[in-house]
């Protein structure tokens, strides 16, 4: 098989997509949102990671010229297809209660290519055992 054919195959296999990222407080919201994404939208290309959040608008006293203490936050990330993006974006927004003050922010970016991801079918679920 020639290099050109390989390259063509790769491009077809890895279509464009969207990445949606979301910053939420470290209060278990990330796990709840991930569970809801899996249940309602079947999303498995997702995860969360610990981050330090520094807000200039945070209502904390700081010495002049100093930064406020960072807050421990979680960053959720989801990789999805273009047609799933609208529904997932809205679900994450409402599920993480981002319409309330101090809850965080969500944003969506384009991805030029992404690999598929599937979980093995014959392994029982960690929580339910099913």
């Amino acid at each position, binding site marked *: 098989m020639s290099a050109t054919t390989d390259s063509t195959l790769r491009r077809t296999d890895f279509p464009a997509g*969207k990445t949606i990222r979301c*910053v939420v407080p470290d209060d278990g919201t990330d796990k709840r949102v991930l569970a809801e994404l899996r249940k309602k939208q079947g999303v498995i290309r997702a995860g969360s*990671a*610990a*981050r*330090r*959040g*520094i*807000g*200039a*608008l945070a209502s904390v006293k700081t010495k002049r*010229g100093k*930064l406020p203490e*960072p807050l421990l*936050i979680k*960053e959720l990330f989801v990789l999805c297809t273009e047609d799933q993006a609208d529904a997932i*974006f*809205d679900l994450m*927004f*409402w599920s993480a209660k*981002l*319409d*309330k*003050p*101090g*809850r*965080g*922010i*969500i*944003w*969506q*970016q*384009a991805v030029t290519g992404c690999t598929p991801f599937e979980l093995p079918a014959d392994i029982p679920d960690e929580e339910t055992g099913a």
Partner: protein
Amino acid sequence: MSEIIYLTDLSVITCIVDKERSDAVLLAARDVGARAAIVHSAQSWGIRERLGVLGVAVETERDIITFMVSSDQRDLIFDAIYQTADLDAPGRGFMFITPVERGATYIPEAVREQLGVNQE
């Protein structure tokens, strides 16, 4: 449940700098209008071998700082970070801007009214 106001004209600035410079970068960005930042730690690779005497004194601990900024603030904040982090010197780090298709967050009631979006 109120309506989501989608924010456009946003960019993400991602900056990879030495840990010891990250506070200065955050302050510089805040001073020119950045409202929030997300920071996480990372380990750089390949730099120790190229810099310093036997690479002993070269710090490989890095901070990755992410700023969500409006497009009109983007260049100002980018320049401020670039200058503060001395990114024109070799081995100091690098930064990049990526476009955001849309974002959403809490919008105060007064702003919603200005935009003509009513809350239930």
